[in-house]
């Protein structure tokens, strides 16, 4: 009975227990070696398992983002192609309009040009209503109808935008799939942006004006619709020898006029001279006399027809389709002042068309930039995917060198345990008593 006493059966039991433990440890490291993973269960290393799971989720998300990016990219490519086409259509339309301004054209050749312009307008509308392969509109803006540009006959006439105005922004990991068609086709600035110049259909003379310009907006009180003004009216008068014009401000309610203070009363008309009133510069030109009977031939004392040139304030943008329609209508115009009217209208059409082309090119540039960004985002996604893969691997994969070295260590340990067990258990007093 002493501290040195050991029980035989217990010694066996303990040795067997130890060998079992070593074998189980060996089995564990063998599982790690064969699966290549250090973390086979969450309890092997809860922290690493958590980080690996997170990395796996991020990886799945990057893959989903990549798919979405591809879809956006193909849609944007279609948008870009559509806008390119729209630009080509504008170039052709502009040529036709310039051609239409040629005074030697006959009515039938103008009709021919008008038909061609009608065709171009149809094509433009088709481009604007284009969809991607899945049926999503390319120019619907934030959504809205399946056909964002609706050509209406009746009231109101013209193209209505049925999409949703507005543009989705590009974010760090996604791109819009559609662009705001309203900004492309429906936001054309009419005339010079402040007012439009038009001739009354009852005009008989050939007086017309350029598009004019506002040099001092503060003085242009006649354009201030909120103060009850409705623009300016220039009325021709006087005689053939001394033609005059008179500018008045129009007041909408009740309909009346008031004189322009800086240029009151009838003024002598000199074709081609720029006049300035209320901070507006405008050049009137053309013969104030008409061509038809009984005005021709006329004497110097004959009165000049009281033709009217109107300056209408601009309060909302027009659309490119309306501009096309304006050109078509002008080419088909057959009134008494046909010549002046065509020039006046086509002048304005050209300005608006240039303005519209600018808008198309602006959007095209933005889409091009997005497509560039799509490429760099694709690379970023690939980098991210690689990073998450590595992170996952770092957390849960086994360091093979360390694994094999551990395995060998444990193998040696088990061997030693077995050998010493065999040797010690051979020692027994009974072997010597025989």
């Amino acid at each position, binding site marked *: 009975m002493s501290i040195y*006493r050991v029980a035989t059966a217990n010694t066996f039991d303990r040795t067997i227990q130890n060998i079992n433990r070593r074998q189980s440890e060996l089995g564990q490291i063998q599982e790690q070696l064969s699966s290549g993973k250090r973390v086979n269960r969450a*309890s092997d290393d809860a922290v690493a398992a958590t980080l690996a799971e997170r990395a*796996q989720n991020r990886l799945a998300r990057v893959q989903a983002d990549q798919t979405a990016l591809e*879809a956006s990219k193909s849609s944007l490519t279609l948008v870009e192609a559509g806008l390119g086409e729209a630009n080509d259509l504008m170039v052709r339309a502009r040529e036709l309009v310039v051609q239409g301004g040629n005074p030697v054209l006959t009515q039938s050749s103008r009709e021919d040009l008008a038909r061609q312009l009608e065709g171009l307008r149809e094509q433009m509308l088709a481009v604007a209503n284009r969809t991607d392969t899945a049926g*999503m509109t390319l120019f619907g803006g934030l*959504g*809205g109808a399946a056909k964002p540009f609706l050509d209406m006959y009746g009231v109101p006439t013209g193209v209505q935008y049925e999409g949703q105005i507005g543009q989705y922004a590009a974010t760090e990991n996604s791109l819009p799939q559609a662009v705001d068609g309203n900004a492309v086709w429906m936001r054309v600035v009419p005339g010079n942006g402040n007012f439009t110049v038009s001739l009354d259909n009852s005009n008989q003379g050939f007086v017309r004006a350029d598009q004019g310009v506002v040099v001092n907006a503060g003085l242009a009180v006649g354009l201030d619709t909120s103060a009850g003004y409705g623009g300016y009216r220039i009325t021709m008068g006087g005689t053939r020898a001394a033609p005059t014009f008179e500018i008045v401000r129009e007041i909408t309610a009740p309909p009346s006029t008031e004189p322009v203070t800086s240029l009151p009363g009838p003024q002598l008309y000199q074709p081609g001279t720029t006049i300035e009133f209320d901070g507006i510069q405008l050049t009137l030109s053309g013969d104030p006399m008409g061509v038809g009977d009984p005005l021709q031939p006329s004497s110097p004392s004959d009165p000049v027809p009281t033709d009217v040139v109107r300056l209408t304030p601009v309060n909302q943008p027009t659309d490119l389709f309306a501009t096309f329609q304006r050109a078509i209508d002008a080419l088909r115009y057959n009134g008494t002042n046909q010549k002046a009217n065509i020039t006046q209208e086509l002048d304005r059409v050209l300005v608006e068309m240039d303005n519209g082309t600018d808008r198309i090119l602006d959007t095209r540039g933005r889409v091009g930039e997005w497509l560039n960004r799509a490429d760099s985002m694709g690379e970023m996604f690939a980098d991210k995917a690689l990073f998450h893969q590595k992170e996952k691997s770092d957390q*849960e994969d086994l360091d093979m060198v360390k694994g094999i070295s551990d395995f060998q260590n444990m193998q040696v340990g088990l061997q030693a345990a077995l050998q010493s067990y065999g040797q010690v258990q051979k020692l027994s007093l009974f072997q010597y008593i025989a």
Partner: protein
Amino acid sequence: MSSLNIASRALTTNLAAMQVIGHNIANVNTDGYSRQNILLGTSGGQFLGNGYFGKGVEIEGVSRAYDSYLTREAQLTRSVSAGDEARYARLQQLESLFPLGDQSLGVTLNNALNAWSAVATSPLDTTARTVVIARSEELTARLRDVTASLDETRLSSTLQVQEAVKSINSLAEQIAQVNQTIVQSQGTGRSPNDLLDQRDQLVSQLNQYVQTSTVPAADGSLTVFVGGSQPLVLGTRVSPMAAERNPVDGDKLDIKIYQAGQPAEINADFLGGGALKGLVRFVNEDLPESYNMLGRLALSMSEQVNAQHRLGLDANGDPGENFYQIRGAGTPDSIYSYGADGSLQIAAKPIGTASGSGVVATVSDFNALQASDYEIRVGTGTDVTVIRKSTNESVQLTSVPDPISGNSIVSIDGLRIDLGASPANGDRFLLQPYAGVARNLEVVLSSPQDVAAASSVRVDLPATNAGSLLVENLRAVSTPPAGWSSTAVEFNSLGQYRVVSPSTPPLPPAVPADWVNFQPGQPIVANGFELVLRGVPTDGDTFNISPATAADAAQNFGNAKAILGLRDKASFGGVNLGDGYIPVFSALANKVQAGRVAAEFSTTAATNAATALANRTGVNLDEEAARLLQFQQAYQASAKFLQVAQGTFDTLIQSFG
């Protein structure tokens, strides 16, 4: 004559000693055997005038090597380690139900959520919509599978508990029988060593199932207590134990002991150790936590997707319905039902009979949900005590009346608990919000057309906007106030914005609203929508938000994006919904780790205690061999002495002869 007597007694005594050694050698590998020792004494002396002459040797008895302290230590440590090992084995099995890597539930969850990305990309694509439904069905099927496996584990663990109880009762019977035999053999005045060994061994076996404490009685019987102070064996009487289903929560087990037919409940915490304790802890604590963790994931995911889905418009322009549902919800058998607005309501079960109104809980904050059951105790006045079962923490709350219904409301852990109009003092309820969710969750949508991918709100920009401020995202985040028709976000020349609603019906925020500094990318929230703008604001920029119409539905994907955005919504105490599987397995992993450490530690302690005991009471063959030689020589010497004694006697006889 005396010499012959001495010699013959010496022979028999030494032979008996060798018999004891033989018994020791024979039982070297017998479990619970204590080494026996022969106790020798001199037969005393006889006074023969010239002195005392010894009369030889005699056997005083056979004792066993025994140490009550070490025996108890070995039993207790063995008991603790048996409990830890049983629990650890079960935990390992449980962990295998929550694998990592490609087969993990997390992958299925993310597949279901990421599938909305394809819908957000092409909402007109029926395939994308079908994939969302299919992936979500995959997820619910997976949740049901895991629950079925959990059920299987619970069933087998419960059976194992019943087996353990059976073994305890059988061992108790045997101890009672041995007690009786020992009491009967007390009359001999000798220690019944092998019976005592047998009883110690039975107690030791009993301790593997349940930790006991023992008190020896004067008559030699042993009284065995379990669970602190409940007598399992009292002399020869046995009070059987039983494991019964909890009457309120049928998934939990109550441990009882029947004394004279009367059941008394034993608090599982007082069991101390043994497989029974480990298994009961597994069934009553570990398994419910896994159920609740899984259920919380299922509930949070399904309810958040449902809520967002209801805010959207489907392909036909109709408002979205619930995407997921809990099978059987709304039937009398189910504690779940759906309210008029489509949100989930969870009824609490009364404990005993409740005299007041019923209790219904709804989710108010998904991020605050805890994977736990709750016991609700209604007190006097507005006092309510809620016991969080996972931590056994008791929280004192004061109920407040609901502004509309007037019902008493308490809130805890993101749950809004409606105690009804007349909660009665003393009523108790058990609320199990999560246990049944994963088992019954299913996708209720069948047609891809019903997937509500479109947003129910639209933003209109007047053509006068400068166009450099772009819409990054617009989504509905909650049900708009009744009568809402439009809200405008306006910008001024300083780049500040204000949110304006029409004055009829009067809706907040009305004019004059305060101008707020604008930060690109920061959400502007009002009247149920969330608008994110990016870019440079210009004076007069306006964004009009209004309810979307059916015609808007086809080309819009705002709601699909919003559901996709749920991936990043903090849902489990700050963990994103997309990472929702992490809390499930990491809580379990920590348990398994702790269980392993505990099992390793207690096994080592048990081994050490067993070794200490064995070293004191076990048989060492070398020692026995040495003793055998010792007594063999003594026997040989005794025989020689007999021969000599006989020789002297013969000599004497011959001299007369």
